[in-house]
């Protein structure tokens, strides 16, 4: 009991921005083979200031700016990783990932399979997604579904400051290539982060809120929307279990299945268009392995099948919110 109190005492309130910066700092300090590079990450500190101060601390051999060429970022990271370094590259917006797509899909994801001697590709690509800032069609898309179908890639989409830090540190230490997706709309969210060094394992689904009446599986920034929806539903006597997979691929399905077996209701939530998305895969996995536990059809919350629109009214209509999740849960329960 006293130990728990101590752990509580050792937490400080941090924003996601701060926790990511600290994760990068700690890993650069821990391992000389870790390097961080990308457009404007060094002297400028990153477009969203995630790498602020790291260039000053570690010098331009370890933290440096690169040409505006995503093929160089993706490709050189693969080569550096194969040679034994642990590169972290920042690709400014996830919308730019397709430019490096060849190196992610055909190179990084396949070299462990291609090599016969256990050589793998320990690289991390950090990239930003997130809608709601009026950045329009090409600066906010959620790219997870573009890459989910690629065996060999790991895709991590954390939600809280504590998860962001612990998962980024694990991603850097992981021997497989990791696409680490950061929601740029949530960098300012704050929450408790342990002061002592810690990591959080990849590929482990977390339960963010307990509840017996409905399971909401939310990813990335939508975890906050799901938690808000759960609070509102609680006022109406409906207790939601909010499940946060944190790693999209490879997906840890057991906690999702266990939750659905308890609540008998499944709602999924993502920022990307619903069709062909993460929620569809979760639904399919549940239908495969827990179909007879479901009391109602699965509800998937996501964006419509359109590009992200620019005008304020259109963007508001586009982005999924807590209200959409609330409605989906009620619909499912009342089915």
């Amino acid at each position, binding site marked *: 009991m006293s130990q728990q109190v101590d752990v509580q005492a050792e937490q400080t309130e941090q924003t996601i921005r701060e926790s990511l910066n600290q994760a990068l700092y700690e890993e650069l300090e821990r391992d000389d083979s870790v390097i961080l590079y990308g457009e404007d990450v060094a002297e400028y500190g990153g477009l969203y200031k995630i790498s602020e101060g790291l260039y000053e601390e570690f010098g331009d051999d370890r933290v440096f700016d690169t040409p505006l060429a995503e093929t*160089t970022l993706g490709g*050189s990271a693969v*080569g550096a*990783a*194969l040679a034994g370094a642990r590169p972290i590259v920042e690709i400014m917006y996830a919308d730019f990932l397709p430019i490096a797509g060849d190196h992610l899909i*055909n190179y990084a994801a396949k070299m462990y399979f291609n090599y016969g001697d256990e050589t793998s590709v320990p690289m991390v690509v950090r990239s930003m997604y997130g809608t709601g800032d009026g950045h329009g069609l090409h600066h906010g898309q959620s790219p997870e579904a573009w890459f989910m179908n690629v065996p060999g890639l790991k895709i991590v989409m954390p939600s809280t400051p504590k998860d962001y830090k612990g998962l980024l540190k694990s991603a850097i230490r992981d021997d497989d290539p990791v696409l680490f997706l950061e929601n740029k709309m949530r960098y300012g969210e704050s929450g408790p982060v342990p002061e002592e060094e810690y990591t959080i394992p990849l590929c482990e689904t977390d339960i963010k809120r307990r509840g017996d009446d409905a399971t909401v599986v939310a990813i990335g920034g939508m975890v906050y929307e799901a938690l808000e929806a759960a609070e509102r539903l609680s006022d109406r006597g409906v207790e939601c279990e909010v499940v946060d997979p944190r790693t999209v691929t490879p997906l840890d399905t057991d906690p999702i299945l266990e939750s659905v077996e308890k609540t008998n209701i499944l709602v999924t939530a993502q920022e990307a268009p619903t069709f062909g998305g993460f929620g569809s895969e979760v639904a399919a996995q549940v239908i495969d392995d827990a179909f007879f536990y479901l009391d109602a059809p699965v509800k998937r919350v996501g964006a419509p099948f359109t590009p992200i629109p620019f005008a304020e009214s259109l963007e508001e209509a586009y982005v999924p919110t807590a209200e959409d999740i609330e409605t989906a849960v009620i619909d499912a329960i009342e089915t």
Partner: protein
Amino acid sequence: MGNASINHRELLEDLLLTRRFEEKVLEVYQDRGIRELPHSSIGQEAVGVGACYPLEDDDILVPSLRTRAVMLLRAPLDEIVAGMYGTRSGPSNGRTTEHHMGSSEYGILGTTGMIGAHLNPAAGAALGNKVLDNDRVTVAFFGDGASQRSEFHSALNFATVQELPVIFVIENNHWTEASPIEKLVAVDDLADLANHGLPTKVIDGQDVEEVVDATATAAQRARDGDGPTLLEAKTYRYRPHAETMPEHRDEATLEEWRDRDPIELYRSRLLEEDFVTEDEIEEIDRRLQTRIDEAFEAAETDELPDEETMYHVYKDTEIDHWKGVVR
């Protein structure tokens, strides 16, 4: 490097190994087929052989799918042939083709089926070696086709601005698949496409010692911390892009290049200068032929891999490969 430090007989043997191997591949492919579609390097062996010669064993080579010499000079023969057959003694037990195999043990960086996609990874390997503070040089080989891709420019730019220890070697065999280079590129020398602030040199890809010398100079520059070099080796392939494609090129041009065959040029020069005798060459040839024949026999009787072999996708996470989820 200077000719004094070249062991001529060894270099000739490297050339003969590559030529005899490629001849055997064609013979077996035409007779009874090989699972990996041959993309023959016959005619352009001196580029790979010459570039490998002055390097250290732990330097990293990044071959194109046609740089057969790199595979032959770095990996065991049995493994290479098994790699072409897709049998269990192959480089990844049959998971991949010999064309793109990678091995940290042999210092061969794995590649993909995308032409030129390995140029930025080659620069990245050089970056990795720079970070790890070792003395390794990385050498990337690619054809004229790759020089038409944006990868060529982004990799050269990055390597130059970061002063990376890497050598880029264009094996310009004048044909991009089935199209002549002059229809695809408006300069005579592909080296002229690169104005990125790095030294470039056009060399005779049929003259193995010229390739050795140019690579040795570039490797020294890289090891001295002075950055990358681009070499363009002019050469020609005697076979179509791949063995399934009919030959449609001009026979007269092909003959002109055959008159400057890289193996024959070097062989006759060594004979003329009494570095080697006809008998010695015959002896080398016989020995190589036996080794090659034995490797093919071994591959032809080797077993196919078990299904389990392909369940090798993540190093750090166990998954159910049919469900695609964590086990």
